[in-house]
């Protein structure tokens, strides 16, 4: 219980909100090195927030009359999002300094967006869910367009904003339908109300479909993925890194909670939608990535593909599915952190690397970097013994537990197709002879090096002691 009014600051979200304002002011009044100092402070704040989430402090109070919920699943994903956000701030610091984009607002925007994500993951009410999504998205719209003098960055920001606003509108319309037909905004109340009925009426089905469309946009599942490659391509690399790593975590947690809490009894209705999204994402992600020459577009399609696999676990909708999703999301985050830590430090002729073909000859000039990229790519393709394999493995366990044989077979087929473009990157680095050597240089700061090393360590060594992560994810309840 609340003994002391100051304890309110130990609620992770409130702590993060207040600290974000402090960071903003801190950056504003700092004359020199504002960007660097604010980034460091932001990392520190996020670390403290992780501690608070981990300690579960004041969790009862934080529910605010059931606006938010509290469970081990929520805490796990919150910590995942916070970790991803810390990693992406650290690895992008040098990049921002390198392209002379020193606005101290960037880490602050990341903080606000992370706050939005934490609320999103925890939300237990349609209204709080919508507000959290908007807080998260608005920060990201600005972040995408932060490089004001670059046309492509502005274009990607506007594109993201327009499509994001559209999807928010659809989402909101869905909410209003659900509210209209159930008379409540609270997840538990909706669930209680719906438990009296055997099937959904037409209005609720429409509401459900609209919400699914909105959420599919947020996780960038096919056919609502169009924004992803363009935004990834246009935004500065480090912002792309943030997009790839963090918001996906929150959106996936949200779509899980939305399907499994208020609509848990109407599996048949929503699982068909998710099933379609899943298959379409896996195959489009695998096939469209083959023709890409821009590494950021390739990673965009790769993330669309990964979302497809996570949605398989959602279709399975059992305890194994939740476990699989958390393991998969963890591996996804680790692999993306690793690949972006490398991409943000690779320069070709003094320009940051964009074209895949520029990786040519990397295995000669930087054998360790190219080995790391190969390991990450093989892991993303789901080749054992790396962590990516276990993510996929648990997803298929969940699917087969639910007797989704056709979906599993389609899933593995898509993974074979996607192996092609991951292998293509290894091929470019190792098999292609390059005429011009030494134009690639790899310069990485000490902090990013630690992040890179840790994530590679997890990718390679997960197999030796898997029980740590698996026991945690097995105990998660939604």
């Amino acid at each position, binding site marked *: 219980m609340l003994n002391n009014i100051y304890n309110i600051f130990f609620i992770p979200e409130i702590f993060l909100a207040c600290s974000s304002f402090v960071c903003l002011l801190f950056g504003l009044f700092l004359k020199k090195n504002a960007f660097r100092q604010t980034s460091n402070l932001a990392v520190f704040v996020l670390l403290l927030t992780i501690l608070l989430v981990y300690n579960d402090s004041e969790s009862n109070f934080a529910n605010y009359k059931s606006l938010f919920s509290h469970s081990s699943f929520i805490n796990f994903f919150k910590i995942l999002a916070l970790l991803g956000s810390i990693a992406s701030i650290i690895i992008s610091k040098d990049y921002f300094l390198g392209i002379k984009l020193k606005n101290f607002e960037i880490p602050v925007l990341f903080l606000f967006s992370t706050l939005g994500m934490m609320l999103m993951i925890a939300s237990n009410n349609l209204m709080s869910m919508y507000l959290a999504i908007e807080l998260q998205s608005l920060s990201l719209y600005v972040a995408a367009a932060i490089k004001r003098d670059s046309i492509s960055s502005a274009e990607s920001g506007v594109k993201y904003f327009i499509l994001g606003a559209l999807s928010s509108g659809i989402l909101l319309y869905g909410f209003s339908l659900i509210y209209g037909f159930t008379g409540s905004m609270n997840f538990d109340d909706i669930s209680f109300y719906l438990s009296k009925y055997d099937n959904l009426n037409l209005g609720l089905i429409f509401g459900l479909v609209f919400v699914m469309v909105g959420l599919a946009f947020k996780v960038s599942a096919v056919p609502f993925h169009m924004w992803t490659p363009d935004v990834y391509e246009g935004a500065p690399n480090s912002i792309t890194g943030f997009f790839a790593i963090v918001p996906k975590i929150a959106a996936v947690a949200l779509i899980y909670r939305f399907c499994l809490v208020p609509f848990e009894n109407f599996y048949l209705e929503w699982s068909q939608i998710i099933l379609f999204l899943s298959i379409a994402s896996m195959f489009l992600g695998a096939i469209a990535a083959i023709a890409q020459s821009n590494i950021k577009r390739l990673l965009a399609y790769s993330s669309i593909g990964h979302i497809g696999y996570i949605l398989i676990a959602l279709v399975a909708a059992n305890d194994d599915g939740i476990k699989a999703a958390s393991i998969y999301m963890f591996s996804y985050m680790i692999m993306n952190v690793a690949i972006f830590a490398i991409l943000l430090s690779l320069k070709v002729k003094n320009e940051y690397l964009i074209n895949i073909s520029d990786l040519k000859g990397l295995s000669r000039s930087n054998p360790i970097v190219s080995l790391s990229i190969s390991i990450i790519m*093989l892991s993303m393709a789901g*080749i054992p013994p790396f962590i990516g394999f276990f993510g996929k493995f648990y997803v298929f366990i969940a699917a087969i537990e639910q007797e989704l044989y056709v979906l599993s077979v389609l899933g593995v087929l898509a993974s074979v197709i996607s192996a092609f473009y991951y*292998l293509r990157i290894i091929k470019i680095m190792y098999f292609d002879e390059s005429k011009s050597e030494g134009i690639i240089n790899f310069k990485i700061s000490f902090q990013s090096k630690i992040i890179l090393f840790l994530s590679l360590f997890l990718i390679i060594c997960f197999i030796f002691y*898997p*029980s740590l992560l698996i026991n945690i994810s097995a105990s998660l309840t939604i």
Partner: protein
Amino acid sequence: MIDWPLVSVIIFLPLIGALIILFIKEDELTSINIKWAALLTTLGTFILSLILWLQFDYSNPSYQYEEKFRWFDDFNFFYHVGVDGISLFMILLSTFLTPLCILASWNNIKKRVKEYMLSFLFLETVMIGMFASIDILLFYIFFEAVLIPMYLIIGIWGGNRRIYASFKFFLYTLLGSVLMLIAIIVMYRNTSSMSIEFLQGNYFSYNTQLFLWLAFFASFAVKIPMWPFHTWLPDAHVEAPTAGSVILAGVLLKMGGYGFIRFSLGMLPEATEFFIPLIMTLSIVAIVYTSLVALAQTDIKKLIAYSSVAHMGIVTIGIFLVNQQGLEGAMMQMISHGLVSAALFLCVGVIYDRMHTREIEFYGGLVQRMPLYATVFMIFMLGSVGLPGTSGFIGEFLVIVGAFKVSSYVVIGAAFGIILSAVYMLYLYKRIIFGTITNNKLADILDINTREKIILIPLAISVILLGIFPNLFLDPMRLSLELIITNYEIANAK
């Protein structure tokens, strides 16, 4: 018995060697150190694996040298390794061929020696690990991990069309093996166990067996390879460097046969009974068709690659006869093919290193300049044809004896294939070795040097040894094979 974890040491010794090599800096002078480190590691592994054979208990049909540790807390997945009569010689084959491969690449691999040796040592670890796994998921992890080093070996050090070949190899085999993953999960779901031992006595319902069988078939038929899934093999063989072809033909193809025995026969007996006609048909088509294709080849390596498909056809016939002679024949044929085809690829490598071409037309009359080479080549060529006294004879003979018990049509098919194999191998030998030297470039070609003798002579000795004392190899595997056949017959009698 041995009280230290012998099998694990054999599995991970090459990996430790690889870790050491990782920290040797590579330049002109030190690349020789890398080669020596790799050679000594693989030789050490081979010597350790000989202990496996010497200490092997012939009267025990099940696994020996078992090691078992719990690995995943949430489901019954163990680090569980051991050796039985079936896997013993597969492991020995891997450990025997890898040092020879390293020796064979001593001079002709000039770029990226370090990566090359790392790939080979990693490859050795996963090959041995795969044959020694008693846990089905562990088997799968090793089975797929084989693709990584092999992809790099073909892709980096291969010939002109190496990129095409490496992609084809990787994607083809991956497609097969992911279906196996689904099958493994289904098996786990039905039994809550991943132990191969447990699953071999615990059968699934008939319909489940049929689906599982097809999934396993997809991965092993690509791997072994059976017609019509063999098209990746000629490409991979032709483009791979010599040592890559040796491992590919010598060990990787055996993974398919090994899988058929362990999984299809051992775990899915009723489905196997149902699918036997399919396998027999495919095998006979494979033998006759690929033999004829081999006859028409102009590239020596491609010819041997097609002959591998034909020989593997005899192996699949032997396995799916499911009687003692058939299975023993199939095992002998696998070991023999592992030695003979590896040696043939090494022989091709010898002249390729000198002349940098594999066109049959280019050669002719080599016996004039290379008498020693002509002799060892003849031993392996006759081994491949199956002349009595060589290893090839034992396998083919046993398979045909076993086939008589089942169907004379199969015998006719298999025998026809053996005749054809004599035709294309002798024809090849005649064109390359006999006659007078017509090509001026061959006028001063040198006979095999000491390094090549060290590689080829142990192989020649073991081919003949296998042909004269087959019981040396058949005795350890007999009881393990009997166990599989007994279980199979009990399951189908029900």
